[in-house]
């Protein structure tokens, strides 16, 4: 498949490192000069921009957290005057102040090039009809991928999220060949198609680009078989830019990072020490070309690892492992570390239930209890008491084998939990 920006994506390592050093220094210089937050941080750490003399020196620089961005709400972290900002995106901010991201004209131009690379790597060409089922609005997903598809010259359908039945109709009638969405929405689409009796064999779909949430290999397999697509994973984070940071090529052996725009480190989430190539830890991203909102060492809380070995596709860029877990979605129950994503993966393997779930943590008489609400599959007749009890027991045993805790299990009606968002996945009632 064609490499969209051959010059930048197939650079020699030494050239890339020179470019990254140059861009890191310009970013640090601008952030230090224009963003009071960074100026203050540098002074507190007693460092100056010129202390960055090599790429390794990035370890001297301060981290940036989501809380820092919230504290700077709305525009304090911007490095240019507002009149140079041509676009503003924002996180939902359901529980606290949202994170606001500003883009200059150049930022948008670079963004389009980067998402075009990701789409091209996944196999999308100008001949494709691309159905973008990410939300268009304050969320970065829709617009970001839209720009890339448009830059490639594909036929773009900005259908946005939701309205599933209409999406199915469009997919059939407009002959969509590529789907851009979250993996869970893709599965939901497949389910709706099943309900409507739409045969996936009659679809034109051949490629799927999935992002916005973790996609397990199991999910990938299910999407591929149910929708008849080659499913690729791509990575983005709104505070840094949105989609376009990294994406899988058709070999699907790691996500190619757009290293000429982002410097990606992996750190130990506890000690914050930089880890070696291949070691798993928290991804930390520094923007190299962003003008509106440059970001130095942004802590993503996403867990991954990096390899710089060459990919057979010809791209020389570093690759990151798909993000399947986050450092901050770990919950500690009775002193045990529980990753909801692991429970999700486990539910996948159990028949008659969907991987749609909710974890509720309560404290009763000082004792912490884990309750798992799990959605039944459509075909499961829920009035067969005996089978339901067996199913509950199976889940209890499997969870106990995985984490060492026996949860209470509450089976719920089909399609009651599929819309539970990441922020509602864990209900922790202990603090109240």
């Amino acid at each position: 498949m064609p490499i969209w920006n051959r010059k930048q994506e197939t650079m020699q390592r030494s050239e890339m490192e020179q470019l990254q050093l140059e861009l890191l220094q310009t970013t640090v210089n601008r952030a230090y000069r224009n963003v009071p937050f960074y100026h203050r941080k540098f002074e507190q750490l007693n460092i100056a921009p010129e202390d960055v003399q090599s790429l390794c020196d990035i370890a001297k620089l301060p981290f940036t957290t989501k809380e820092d961005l919230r504290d700077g709400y709305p525009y304090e972290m911007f490095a240019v005057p507002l009149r140079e900002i041509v676009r503003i995106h924002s996180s939902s901010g359901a529980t606290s102040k949202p994170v606001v991201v500003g883009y200059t004209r150049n930022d948008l131009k670079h963004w389009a090039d980067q998402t075009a690379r990701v789409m091209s790597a996944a196999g999308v060409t100008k001949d494709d009809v691309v159905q973008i089922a990410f939300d268009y609005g304050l969320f970065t997903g829709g617009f970001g991928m839209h720009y890339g598809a448009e830059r490639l010259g594909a036929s773009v359908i900005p259908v946005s999220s939701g309205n599933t039945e209409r999406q199915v109709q469009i997919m059939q009638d407009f002959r969509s060949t590529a789907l851009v969405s979250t993996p869970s929405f893709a599965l939901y689409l497949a389910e709706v198609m099943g309900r409507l009796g739409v045969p996936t064999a009659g679809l034109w779909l051949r490629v799927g680009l999935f992002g916005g949430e973790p996609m397990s290999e199991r999910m990938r397999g299910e999407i591929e078989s149910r929708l008849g697509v080659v499913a690729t994973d791509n990575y983005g984070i709104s505070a840094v830019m949105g989609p376009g940071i990294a994406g899988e090529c058709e070999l699907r052996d790691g996500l190619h990072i757009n290293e000429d725009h982002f410097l990606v480190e992996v750190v130990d989430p506890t000690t914050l020490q930089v880890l070696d190539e291949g070691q798993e830890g928290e991804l930390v991203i520094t923007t190299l070309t962003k003008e509106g909102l440059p970001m130095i060492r942004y802590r993503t809380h996403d867990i991954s690892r990096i390899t710089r070995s060459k990919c057979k596709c010809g791209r020389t860029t570093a690759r990151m492992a798909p993000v399947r877990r986050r450092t901050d979605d770990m919950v500690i129950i009775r002193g045990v570390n529980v990753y909801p994503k692991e429970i999700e993966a486990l539910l996948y393997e159990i028949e008659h239930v969907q991987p749609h779930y909710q974890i509720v943590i309560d404290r009763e008489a000082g004792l912490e209890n884990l309750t798992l609400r799990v959605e039944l599959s459509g075909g499961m007749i829920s009035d067969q008491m005996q089978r339901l009890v067996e199913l509950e027991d199976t889940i209890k045993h499997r969870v106990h084998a995985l984490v060492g805790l026996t949860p209470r299990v509450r089976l719920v009606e089909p399609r009651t939990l599929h819309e539970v968002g990441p922020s509602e996945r864990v209900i922790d009632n202990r603090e109240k």
Partner: protein
Amino acid sequence: MLKLQSVMTYYGRILALKGVSLHVDPGEIVAVVGPNGAGKTTALNTISGVLSPRSGRITFDGKDIAGKTADKLVEMGLVQVPEGRQLFPGMSVYENLMLGAYRRSRAAKRSLVSEDLDRIYATFPVLKDRSRQSAGTLSGGEQQMLAIGRALMARPRMLLLDEPSMGLAPLVVKEIFRVIADLRRDGGTTVLVVEQNAKAALAVAKRAYVLETGRVVMEGPASELAKNPEIQRAYLGKGYKQMVE
């Protein structure tokens, strides 16, 4: 072709370059723009061996050149056209040009030198017309052409140009930059030009760096930077931070 990594240079007691990194690929015209006192000339003088860097690395064709003399660099193919031309006003145009070939005249064949001379006369017909005239009688633009011509006599693979527009009328500046663009197109000469006249430099350069108080604050395609409001501000020296207006 040319690489600088975190170069720091003192100009007297002032740290004039605070860790500058840049690169020039073969066949490129790269511009370094920035306001007066940003460190542009210091950067060029550090590359050409006039000044020695305190720290950092400079390589030309992969070879370390930090601290090498200008002579040595001319032999390697790296030739600087200094700011203010630095011609010999009492000598003729022809004699000034021949001085540019002094490193070669003994080793290289005379015929090659005269071939080069013909080529330079073709590029700058005015220099041929005035070859017997003393350099001091030339106009500012003609002197700049002579300075570039003299540098070309050394058969550089890379030319370092220091403020070629200095003191010249706008039309003459245009002419000089047209010649710079031609050099790359016709002769494949790689060019690094430092220039306060950002508009003129960005019009011919492929990529550019914006230098401010000894630090590179931006880099990118020249066409992109030409449209950047920050560059305007860097020159006007206006107050930077105006968030909500």
